[in-house]
């Protein structure tokens, strides 16, 4: 079969690899009908996530049709149409039962690697480094799905792939970011980053009762997309002197009640700290660039919440913990517990409250992956979201 493989820093290749096989009794094999490149795949592409190996199959946003099930998978049949959440979860451990799915105890065969970095190991992920289990990803014609009895969600006929694909990651990720904000009616929510996760965070903030939503980015097409709902306000940080002053002025001197960093570890900034981050990251003195996180902590109102769906992988310097402490901020973060959100968010899609396909800018085939990774990374050609058909 054809698969998109990581081949080293800034190189992906479409390679002919063996078809996946059932390896465990709760496995299933899915024939992929639609897959996407995620913003977090760009961290792999740029070489910022350790423990990648040449030849690893990429991709953690995918859906398709069940073509084979293991002996212990009783609730799915060949031919079922499913979306597959990006964290691989067992559904039986204490964490899964508590709804903390992405912290699953039992799905990372390389738990010791993850544990040596973080103290305790978290769930395996599709196509996201050996530290996260080394599972082959879904940017391929077929993919092996472990614990298929608990992870995939069956999709009713009549809903096109493009409307439901993002239930695998970015819609729940944006939604959990907004839910983590604990939004009270009338709250002002500021969202840094208008990429796909930011877009879903914005729409979810509205769903959860925000009074105002202010989106911050520098790409006109992304700001336009955020504004398209007719009520989200936008700030182009490349055009204004100071995000803090603008946000303060826009909120009667209070600051936004809830701040969402939907950018993560490859933040772009125009201040000296952003430049220093770039130098240190290039010299491998730190993994992550954190300009946005610092700004969000600074801008947030006293007693507010800073929610972090953007991915951070390692260590960062100069995080103003004193600011967070002094203002009594609440910080919430983490990999998304996708399985907790797939059903309720599918229901919102079925009711017509949202059509997630609004973020798609590019529709291509798997063969275009090498070019599309570059285009998406460089945000060329107004690229916000790439979906790929395997055929």
């Amino acid at each position, binding site marked *: 079969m054809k698969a998109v493989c990581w081949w080293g820093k800034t190189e992906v290749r479409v390679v002919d*690899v063996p078809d996946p096989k059932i*390896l465990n009794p709760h496995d299933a094999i899915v024939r992929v009908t639609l897959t996407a490149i995620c913003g977090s795949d760009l961290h792999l592409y740029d070489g910022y996530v350790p423990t990648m*190996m040449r030849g690893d199959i990429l991709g953690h946003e995918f859906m398709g049709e069940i073509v084979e099930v293991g002996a*212990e998978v009783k609730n799915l049949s060949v031919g079922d149409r499913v979306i597959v959440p990006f964290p691989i979860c*067992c559904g039986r451990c204490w964490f899964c039962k508590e709804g903390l799915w992405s912290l699953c105890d*039992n799905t990372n065969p390389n738990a010791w690697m993850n544990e040596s970095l973080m103290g305790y190991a978290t769930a395996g992920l599709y196509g996201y480094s050996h530290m996260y289990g080394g599972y*082959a990803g879904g940017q391929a014609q077929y993919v092996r799905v472990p614990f298929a009895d608990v992870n995939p969600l069956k999709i009713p006929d009549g809903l096109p792939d493009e409307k439901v694909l993002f239930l695998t990651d970015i819609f729940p990720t944006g939604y959990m970011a907004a839910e983590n904000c604990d939004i009270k009616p009338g709250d002002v929510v500021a969202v840094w980053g208008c990429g796909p996760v930011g877009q879903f965070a914005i729409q979810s903030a509205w769903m959860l009762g925000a009074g105002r939503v202010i989106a911050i980015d520098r790409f006109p097409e992304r700001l336009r997309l955020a504004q398209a709902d007719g009520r989200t306000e936008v700030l182009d940080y490349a055009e204004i002197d100071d995000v803090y002053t603008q946000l303060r002025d826009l909120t009667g001197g209070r600051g936004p009640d809830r701040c969402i960093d939907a950018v993560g570890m490859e933040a772009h900034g125009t201040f000296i700290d952003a430049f220093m981050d770039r130098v240190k990251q290039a010299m491998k003195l730190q993994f992550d660039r954190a300009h946005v996180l610092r700004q969000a902590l600074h801008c947030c109102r006293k007693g507010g919440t800073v929610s972090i769906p953007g991915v951070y992988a390692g260590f960062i310097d100069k995080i103003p913990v004193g600011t967070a402490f002094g203002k009594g901020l609440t910080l919430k973060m983490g990999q998304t517990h996708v399985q907790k959100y797939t059903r309720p968010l599918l229901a919102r899609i079925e009711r017509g409250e949202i059509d997630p396909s609004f973020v798609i800018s590019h529709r291509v085939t798997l063969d275009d992956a090498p070019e599309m990774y570059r285009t998406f990374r460089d945000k060329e050609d107004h690229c916000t979201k790439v979906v790929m058909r395997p055929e």
Partner: protein
Amino acid sequence: MAEQVFSTAHKNVAEPERWVSVVAGAALAAYGLKMRSIPGLVIGAIGGALIHRGATGHCMVYESMGVTTAAEEDDGSNVSIPYGKGVRVEKSVTINAPQEQVYAFWRNFENLPRFMHNLESVEVHDSLRSHWVAKGPAGTTVDWEAEIINEIPHELIGWRSIDGSKVDNAGSVHFTPAADRGTEVKVILRYDPPAGVFGAAVSRILGEDPAVNVQEDLRRLKMLLETGEVATTEGQSAGRK
């Protein structure tokens, strides 16, 4: 400072172990020096230390750990490894399953190779005695007879190798209920590796750390009991040959 150490040195390594030290030390030194790299130097240096230890009968590591193997002591206790000797490993895991179930699974020793990767097989003779076969270095196997010496149903199983075994070892596993989290399983293993405590340190450097092995074994036990399978990617597709 170094002179002082040597002047107070006394024999704390037994005779057969001294010979093993010299031979293993020479092999390691030759191997290490051939590598012509920093790790090679380290391995070479360890080899040198082993030769010194064998020649003088004094081991600084044993001294720092308060261990001596020079005079065979027999305290007549119920374990095959007297206290203070050998390598001791203690690891725990919490399993989301009832105490009785976890205990019963372990009590059937023939289940152990399903999650202990270095164990090839266990054959149970009767309610107390069993025969264990483990993977040794470089494709070899080591086997021994074991007997249960202590047992409290649902709470504790203690075993030891029977006198005359090639690998002296003893262990116990403790099962404790953990409120709504299931069962805490604690394993304590004590064994006498062929080249003494120092041999264990060398095997650690060469990539076989018993503490890590036990931790990973317990992780597999948890996966097996909570989910019915052990997570794996062995045999999956990749773009590399």
